[in-house]
């Protein structure tokens, strides 16, 4: 519950399974639906809600105090808020930080984002953990539980849904240059290269600004193109490398994007993050599946099987790739071991990065594994220049342990062999 000094209107959160949470409105008035998920990052709420990958999702922050340091223009991860709603235990009325420009509540209200506070967010998180991600509606208008639960049941889910088209840009732009209509000029572009070493074409599926900042700092000129850009159009921009970004929704629904990617494999070096990783994996012939409640937070341990080092990573994904579905194991490239390809724990314990053979693109190696649940976090093709990670090396929010992956992309474009050298240095 909030303090008494400000009178906040009641609000209600209803889940499709009938569970309801009462609270108070702390954002814009209205009603929003989406899949309710939780994020365990203790700081970085602004980056979370402005990450386009959260489109279609109502985000619960597990940290009880949210809004303490307000919001500021430099920490925006995109042109606006993409999470469809926000659920917190307590939203701060004051913004206490030398960079604060606005309170979170004012920001949410200004951008029309529905938010609810005073919720037992731990109960909600445990509920999601046990039941899996659920469809939900948060409302300041309809406070009747039965009615709101009914709405939650009618809300569209994420499976089979292409949300990329909704969040991506419709016009091409160069990072650091003029932004397309509807996009404000970012306050912070990172350090732009004076003389770029490489030109990268980044397919926007909801790209986070910090990916662009990191690319720029690695010496790249980045041209962001809409996801529907064809392979020929992309190649016409004469890129040294192709980047596939993070984004919302079900990867298997974004058929056009991974088909474009497939047609570009071998043409130019490819790097993918999050949805981009799923695009690369799908292009390589791999299946994806939905995790029960996903990985969302800034403390996920990922082992780099090539260096043996563990990176603490920032993650935000509900879907995952099934490495074993790419093709059969190649024992002679897998330390002569014959473990089950799908038993990632066995490979982690053996300290070996297994290699499988895909039908069309040759050898594919498993490079990164999540140590919490032994799921796939990174793959690379050995016979063509392409790699991707499921997590967020650009962080924002989260640790910088995996920042080296941007350097790896530059090395890949340089034609170096040891693209993962320096892995784990933060």
């Amino acid at each position, binding site marked *: *519950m909030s*303090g*008494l*000094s400000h009178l906040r209107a009641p609000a209600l959160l209803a889940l499709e399974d009938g569970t309801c*949470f009462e609270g108070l409105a702390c954002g814009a008035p209205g009603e929003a639906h989406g899949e309710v998920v*939780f994020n*365990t*990052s*203790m*700081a*970085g709420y*602004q*980056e979370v809600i402005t990450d386009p990958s959260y489109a279609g999702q109502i985000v619960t922050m*597990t*940290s*009880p*105090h949210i809004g*303490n*340091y307000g919001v*500021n223009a*430099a*920490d925006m991860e995109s042109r606006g808020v993409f999470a469809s709603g926000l659920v917190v*235990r*307590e939203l*701060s*009325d*004051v913004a*206490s*930080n*030398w*960079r604060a420009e606005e309170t979170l509540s004012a920001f949410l209200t200004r951008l029309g984002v529905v938010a609810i506070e005073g919720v*037992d*967010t*731990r*109960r909600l*998180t*445990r509920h999601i*953990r046990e039941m899996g991600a659920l469809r939900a509606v948060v409302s300041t208008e309809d406070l009747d539980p039965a009615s709101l639960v009914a709405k939650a049941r009618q809300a569209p889910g994420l499976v089979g849904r292409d949300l990329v088209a909704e969040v991506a840009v419709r016009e091409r732009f160069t990072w650091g240059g003029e932004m397309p209509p509807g996009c404000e000029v970012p306050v912070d572009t990172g350090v732009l290269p004076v003389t770029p070493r490489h030109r990268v074409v980044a397919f926007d599926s909801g790209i986070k600004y910090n990916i662009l900042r990191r690319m720029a700092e690695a010496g790249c000129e980045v041209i962001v193109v809409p996801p529907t850009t064809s392979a020929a159009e992309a190649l016409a921009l004469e890129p040294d490398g192709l980047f596939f970004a993070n984004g919302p929704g079900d990867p298997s629904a974004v058929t056009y994007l991974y088909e474009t990617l497939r047609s570009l494999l071998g043409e130019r070096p490819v790097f993918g993050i999050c949805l981009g990783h799923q695009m690369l994996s799908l292009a390589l012939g791999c299946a994806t599946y939905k995790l029960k409640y996903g990985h969302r*937070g*800034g*403390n*996920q*341990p990922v*082992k780099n099987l090539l260096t*043996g*080092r*563990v990176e*603490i990573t920032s993650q935000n994904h509900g879907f995952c790739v099934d490495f074993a579905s790419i093709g059969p194991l190649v024992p002679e490239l897998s330390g002569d071991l014959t473990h089950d390809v799908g038993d990632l724990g066995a490979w982690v314990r053996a300290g070996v990065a297994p290699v499988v053979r895909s039908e069309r693109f040759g050898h594919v190696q498993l490079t990164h594994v999540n*140590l*919490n649940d032994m799921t796939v976090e990174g793959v690379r093709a050995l016979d063509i220049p392409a790699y991707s990670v499921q997590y967020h090396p650009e*962080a*924002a*929010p*989260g*640790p*910088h342990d995996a920042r080296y992956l941007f350097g790896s992309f530059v090395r890949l474009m340089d034609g170096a062999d040891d693209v993962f050298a320096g892995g*784990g240095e*933060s």
Partner: protein
Amino acid sequence: MPRRDDINKILIIGSGPIVIGQACEFDYSGAQACKVLREDGFEVVLVNSNPATIMTDPEFAHRTYVEPITVESVERVIAAERPDALLPTLGGQTGLNCAMALDAAGVLQRYGVELIGATREVIAKGEDRKLFREAMERIGLDTPRSAYAYAIADAEAFVAQVGWPVVIRPSFTMGGAGGGIAYNADELRAITANGIALSPVGEVLVEESVIGWKEYEMEVMRDVNDNAVIVCSIENFDAMGVHTGDSITVAPAQTLTDREYQVLRDASLAIMREIGVTTGGSNVQFAVNPADGRLVVIEMNPRVSRSSALASKATGFPIAKIAAKLAVGYTLDEIPNDITRVTPACFEPSIDYTVVKVPRWAFEKFPGTDTTLTTRMKSVGEVMAMGRTFAEALGKAMRSLENGRAGLGADGKDVFDEHHFDRYLAVPNEQRPYYIAEALRRGRDVAEIAELTGVDPWFLEQMRRMVEVEASIAGRPLAEITAPELRKAKQHGLSDVQVAHLTGALEGDVRRARLDLGVRATFKAVDTCAAEFAAGTPYYYKTYEEENEAVRTDRKKAMILGAGPNRIGQGIEFDYCCVHAAYALSEVGYETIMVNCNPETVSTDYDTSDKLYFEPLTFEDVMDIVDLERPDGVLVTFGGQTPLKLAHALEQAGVPILGTPPEAIDLAEDRRRFAGVLDRLGIAYPAAGTASTLEEAVEVAARIGYPLLVRPSYVLGGRGMVIAYNEEYLLRYVQQATEVSPDHPVLLDRFLEGAIEVDVDAVCDGETVYIGGVMEHIEEAGIHSGDSACCIPPFSLGDSTVGRIREHARALALELGVRGLMNVQFAVKDEAVYVLEVNPRASRTVPYVSKATGVALAKVAARVMAGQRLADMDLPPEDRELGRFCVKEAVMPFGRFPGTDSVLGPEMRSTGEVMGVAADFPSAYAKSQLAIDYSLPTEGTAFVSVCDRDKRAIVPVARHLHSLGFRIMSTRGTARLLKAAGVPVDEVRKVHEGRPNIVDAIVNGDVQLVINTPFGRETRSDGYHIRTAAVEHGVSNITTLAAAQASVQAIEAIQRGGLDVIALQDLGGDAS
């Protein structure tokens, strides 16, 4: 990388006695390390002079040496045990310094002992401010501008460059000892001189002030593969300028954006790598300018620390345990997370609650000392509280302090100094949180208070909400308060007692109303992962939310109430007893439930008991747990006064109390009724009386006669206790004492001057009594038993006297109906045995007795409380020959409180204790003295000056010192006496006799030993100046005749050089 197989035997050095700046957090860390290394098949050798620790329980290590932590003594241990490796990072600054000294002395090389966890170079780089600064420059991190000073002139020259104020930090001292902030030239000279004197290398760092900046701490771990994680971030409520041990601290950090937090994280990891900490935990401190975010590194500790203990308790991530595993070769990803059991320890905990630590001070014990909080730590303990929000956690922490307050004010006990109100806001002090709350109540602006205090507006806004919630119910009848209002009050940390005060009701009414309205406590788990994974370890805190996670089991259960924050009079000894109770009850099949709020302790380690509730020890908080768990019995007699004072209320609420019934405890506390018991048993006691007015006191005094021992009733640690030699003093005292304890009368006892004091710890099961130990005090009666040295077995009492003491103890235990532990204090004067006091509960001496005799008395007592009979326990005969002497000595904190007289008296002021074990009494006493910082000199000049009462007895002492080669120096009176007795003596001037005088001699380092016994309590006398000078200059300072006699024997023993080390495992006796 897996476990190292090239090492087998590991030496761990503990942190020694509890002192300010180094408390039982190192017992928690060390005990964890011993346990985990032992489980992993390593042979563990432990050195720690502190017998009150769990880590020195004989089953924690293979070889346990309760010996002084000195190079000489540890070298003997190394020679005897030949360990392969030394793990120096778990014993605080003491352990680290000793390891460095052993290395510097060539001992480690000589015996081929490898330093693991931190190498010599790492320790030097982390601890030496100059090397540290250079290291920070190399990695591009900013530090405050600073310069080294080896003389006052150096400091003055630096100030000319950077301006006032400056912070002064002596190199290589613990808890910031000797440091301070200088705002003017006088302070600069005083602090610099003192700091140079205290620094073992005669060096201080004078630093640009970052006072008022925000302070953050990061707890970092790194393994041999260079995997590194941040376990916890901590934000200080108090701005820079207050030692972090004296600051209210909050976890996780609350007012940093992720971008700024990650800058701190990157810097912390870079520092770990640059300093070269390859395995283990470190603490890094930063200051951030709130105006522009400029970041400077303050310091790092390449070892486990008080903050790492706090971080472990705050997150559930056991830093010390993991550090020990990393030191022997494991990597973070190979170690499972104990709490989730399915995920690895290689991650960063995410917490979905707020943790607040509040320090506990004891300034009332040290009149005359400056109570301003500075860069030098002064607190003696701390509490931690968890709530979902900061407000809730702060409220809980404020009622956990055991200072008579029920929260952040609004409890009927608010008293403010109106004339200096703003000074209490602006100058950091113990009372400041109450002043902030009051300022907010009076409607003062958050921005204004932030400006005055340097406290972040976010914290102040939370406090403003707390007082706003207070105001919303204040002055309204309880019946009118609705369920949502009550829930809101609880969510903002208000206690039932505060609600009762605000609504003019009784605490019980509030509880009933609350439960009737359905405003019930819920318990949430501490799980390291914000509920992302299911937790396997039941570690809970209370909050007011929708869902409760704590589940009652069907097992038979016992609830143990802990001792709360460490303070003088109630320290680690009581936590030791609680931990033993948990172990013993678990062994006999109980589910054990621990309740405590002290983050430094072993009792609040999640694997000490079956369930842990990290909660304040108030009636409200305990009852909320009782309502959920419905225990078969609650133990109130192990945690000292804290749980004991709840006994009645719990019993009245129908809670089953295990062991001695509260009624028996009352009987022993009620002087009139207890006198009846003693009369009935035919046991002598000093004449006594009670007075509730001044007139009565005079009347009683006239009847009993002087000298008198005078004290308020119901006190712990001799608070407010004095010896009155005349009526004038008595009257002055009684006038003051009425403020100490207004509800209780003043007690007057005949003081048995010159009597020998004896303590007995015993266990009774209702049929038989087992005397655990008879302790003969070194200092005579009149000095608080907690402050005097004592010896097991008695070294001067005759068998018949000891026999009578045993019989009296036995009779008393049976007569009072004790079921469990009992402590009796006796005085022996002219062969007559008097009973001074009986406490039917665990005493401060239980751990010492257990270590000395090999019988774990607290466990025996817990088994008795669980229904077992002493006769069935196969205990060794209580009067057996031990074949050794074990001396316990108290450790005094006078060095921390300049201006306080170091004379011992009936009010306890020691913070901790050490034990010396040897075949003869002088050697055991010598060890006990060597184990304390101010070691005994073996040559030089002894200054001897005693009161008239001691004149005759001092002659043989002086003669003995002379024969040991000491030069004797005395002021006129004593000098005349010694000359007459034929002892060569040099005369020196008293302070008021002009210069140069005795104080000059002490300051100039011409005196190595001071023996100065006062008569009564003089203030600002010659003796005061002499003792104060001795304390400030680290000169051994003896204030009683008995201690002087024992010390001279000890010096002789040291000169003989025969202080062999002895392992507890070789002493025999059933220690577990």
